[in-house]
C-alpha cells in the first residue's frame, strides 16, 4: 500500500525534470510552474510513504539507504519550495529535479520492505542523529546545485555568452551568496548529527569512535565543508573556487553516504536482519 506513494513520488520527480528541461529550452515560465507543482506532489507522496513506513515499524523510519534517500528527497523538496518562493529561483529546479530523480532512482534500486531496525538502533537518538545529518545533506545538495549553476554561468559569461538562456538564471552574486548560505546552515546540522552520533555510540556501544568506515568518511566530508567555510571567511575566496570546492565536497558526501555503505563493512550499513 505505501509503495504506491513511493512510485507516485518517483514518477513525479521524473515528470518535474522533464518540465524543467522544457522550460530551459523554450524559455517559457509556465513549464517551470508545472514543475513546481509536480515537485510539491512528489514531496508530499514521499513524505506519506515515510510516515506509513514509520507507523508500520513503529519508529523513525530511516533504517537503510533506501529510506535515507527518500527522506533526503523530501527535505530537498521542502527546501526547494521554500527557496522558490523566497528568492523566486524556480529555474534552480532544472538542476534540483534531476538530482532528486537521481536519488529516487537509487532509492528504487535499493528498495527494501519496511523492517524495524536492530534493537540496538531503536532509540530516541535515531531521529536526532539521522534527522540532523539529513537536513545537512539536503542543504549541501542545494549548495551543489547552486554551485553547478554558478560554474556554468561563470563559464558562459567569461566566454562572452550573454543571452536569454542565461538570463533565466540568477546573478552570479546571488548564486555565490546562496551557496554560502546553504553551507553555513548545513554545516551546524552535520556537526550536530556527528556529535549526537558519537554520544549515541558511547551509550550504545561504549565507544564514541569506532573506526567505522562511515565515521571516517563522514569526518572527511565534515572537514571538507569546514575547509570551504574557512576559505570563504578567512581567505576571502569567492565565486568559482568556492563553487568547485562545494561540488567536490558534495561528491565526497554522496560517496560517504551511498558508496561506503556498499563497499565497506561496518555497523552503519543499516542492513538489519
Amino acid at each position, binding site marked *: 500500500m505505501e509503495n504506491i506513494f513511493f512510485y507516485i513520488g518517483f514518477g513525479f520527480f521524473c515528470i518535474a525534470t522533464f518540465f524543467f528541461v522544457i522550460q530551459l529550452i523554450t524559455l517559457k515560465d509556465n513549464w517551470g510552474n508545472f514543475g513546481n507543482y509536480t515537485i510539491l506532489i512528489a514531496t508530499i507522496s514521499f513524505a506519506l510513504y515515510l510516515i506509513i513506513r514509520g507507523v508500520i515499524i513503529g519508529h523513525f523510519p530511516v533504517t537503510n539507504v533506501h529510506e535515507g534517500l527518500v527522506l533526503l528527497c523530501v527535505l530537498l523538496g521542502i527546501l526547494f519550495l521554500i527557496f522558490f518562493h523566497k528568492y523566486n529561483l524556480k529555474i534552480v529546479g532544472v538542476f534540483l529535479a534531476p538530482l532528486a530523480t537521481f536519488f529516487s532512482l537509487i532509492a528504487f534500486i535499493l528498495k527494501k520492505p519496511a523492517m524495524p531496525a536492530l534493537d540496538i538502533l531503536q532509540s530516541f537518538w535515531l531521529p536526532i542523529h539521522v534527522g540532523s545529518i539529513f537536513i545537512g545533506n539536503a542543504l549541501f545538495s542545494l549548495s551543489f546545485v547552486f554551485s553547478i549553476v554558478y560554474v556554468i554561468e561563470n563559464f558562459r*559569461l*567569461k566566454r*562572452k555568452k*550573454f*543571452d*536569454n538562456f*542565461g*538570463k533565466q538564471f*540568477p*546573478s*552570479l*552574486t*546571488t548564486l555565490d551568496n546562496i551557496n554560502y548560505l546553504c553551507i553555513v546552515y548545513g554545516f551546524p546540522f552535520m556537526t550536530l548529527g556527528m556529535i549526537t552520533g558519537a554520544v549515541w555510540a558511547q551509550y550504545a556501544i561504549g565507544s564514541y569512535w569506532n573506526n567505522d568506515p562511515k565515521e571516517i568518511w563522514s569526518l572527511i566530508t565534515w572537514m571538507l565543508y569546514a575547509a570551504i567555510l574557512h576559505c570563504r571567511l578567512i581567505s*576571502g*575566496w*569567492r*565565486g*568559482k*573556487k568556492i563553487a568547485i570546492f562545494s561540488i567536490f565536497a558534495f561528491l565526497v558526501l554522496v560517496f560517504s553516504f551511498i558508496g561506503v555503505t556498499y563497499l565497506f563493512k561496518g555497523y552503519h550499513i543499516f542492513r538489519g536482519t
Partner: protein
Amino acid sequence: MKICVVGLSHKTAPVEIREKVAFSSQQKLEEGIMLLKKLDGIKECIILSTCNRVEVYLVCNDENWQDSVANVFSSFHGVDKKELLSHLYFKENDDAIKHIFKVASGLDSMVLGEPQITGQLKEAYGFAAGKNSTGFFTNKLMHTAFSVAKRVRTETKIGSYAVSISYVAVELAKKIFETLEDKKAMLIGAGEMAELAAKHLISNGVKEIIVANRTFERACMLASEFNGIPCSFEEFPEKLKQVDIVISSTGAPTFIITPEKVKEAIKSRRNKPMFFIDIAVPRDIDPKVNDLDNVFVYDIDDLQNVVDANLKERQREAEKAELIINEEIKAFKDWMNSLSVKPILVSLRRHFENIKENELNEAKKKLSHLTEDDFKVIEALLNAVVNKALHKPTIFLKNLSNKENTYLYLDAIKELFDLKGEHGEEKN
C-alpha cells in the same frame, strides 16, 4: 470611406529630405492639419512627425487624394513635387491599417521594437484631436493601434532584448552583481558612449562614480556632470580597489589596465567581483584580465555581438508580432464592414425577433390551457408590435445615406441594442 496613409520614413528618404518635410513646430503642425482639412473629401486627419518619419493618416472618400495631399506637402514645405514623390509612399485600406499598426508597435522603427514611437503617436493623435481633425474612424483606429502596440509589447518579448551597447552593459552588470544599488563605478577617460553607459549605470542605482582623466580639469568637469568624484589619472590604479565597475575609454595606445594591477585590486577587495567595460579602440584593458577569477571584461566587440544577437531575437519576435497585427486588422475590418445599413437592419430585426420568440415560448409554458389557435392570435399580435416598433427606425436607417455622420448613427444603434458580433453572418 477609406483609411489612407501618406508619408516618408528613414526607409524611403534620407535625412535631408526628412528634415525639410518635418512638421517641426506645433505651429507648422497646426497649419498642416488646417490645410489638409480644407481638401475636398478628407474627413479626418492626423499628422505624425518625428525625426525618422513624417506621416499623415487620413480618412477620405476622394479618389485623387494622393495627388492633392502630395500637392499640399510640396507647396507647404517648398519641396519639388517630383522629388518628393520619389520618397513618399501611399497606402490605402488594409495596407494603410497594417502600416499604422506596425508603426504604433515599433515594428517599422529604425531600431526594431523601439517603444518611443507609441508615445509620439499618442501625442500626434492628441494634438490632432485638439484641433478637431480627428473623428469617428481615426478615434477607433488610434485606440486600436495603441492596444495593438500594448499587445505586441506584452505578448512578445520584443522589448526584452537590449539593443544598445550601454543597456547591454547595464544588464551584464546586473547579471554579475544582482543589484547595482550599493555599487561604485569608475569612468576612465571620456567619450560619448562611455558617458552614456555611466549615465545608465547611475539611473540603475549606482550611487558613486569616480572619474579619472589625463587632464584633471576634464575629470572635474565630468565628475560634476555625474555628481561624481574626480581623480587624477595617476591615482586610478589605487582607486581600482574601491570600485566594482570600470568603464574605460581613453585614447591610450597600449593597455592601461593590466592583469597585475587588477590582481592587486581584487586581492584587496577579497575577491569581490569586478566588471570591466572597455569601450576604447585600441583597447585599454588587457584581455588577459578576463582570465582572473571573479573578473569579467567585455570590450566593445563583445558588447556589439550581444547587441547583434539581441537584434536577431527581436526580428524573431517581430514575426510573432505580425500575427497579432494580422489578427487585429481582421477585427478592425469586421468592425468597418459592420457599419453599413443593411447588416444593421438585419441584425436589429433579428434582435427583436429573438425577444419575441423567447417571450412566446415562456408564455406557452405558463398558459397551457390555451389552444393552438389562441397562440396564433398572440403571435400575430407580437409580430404587429415588433413591426410597428421597428417601422420608424427602419425608415430612418434606410434614409441614412443622405445624412452627415452616417457611421455615428449606425454605431450608436449597434451599441444601443448590443448588436456587436452579429454582423459576421449577415454580411451578404
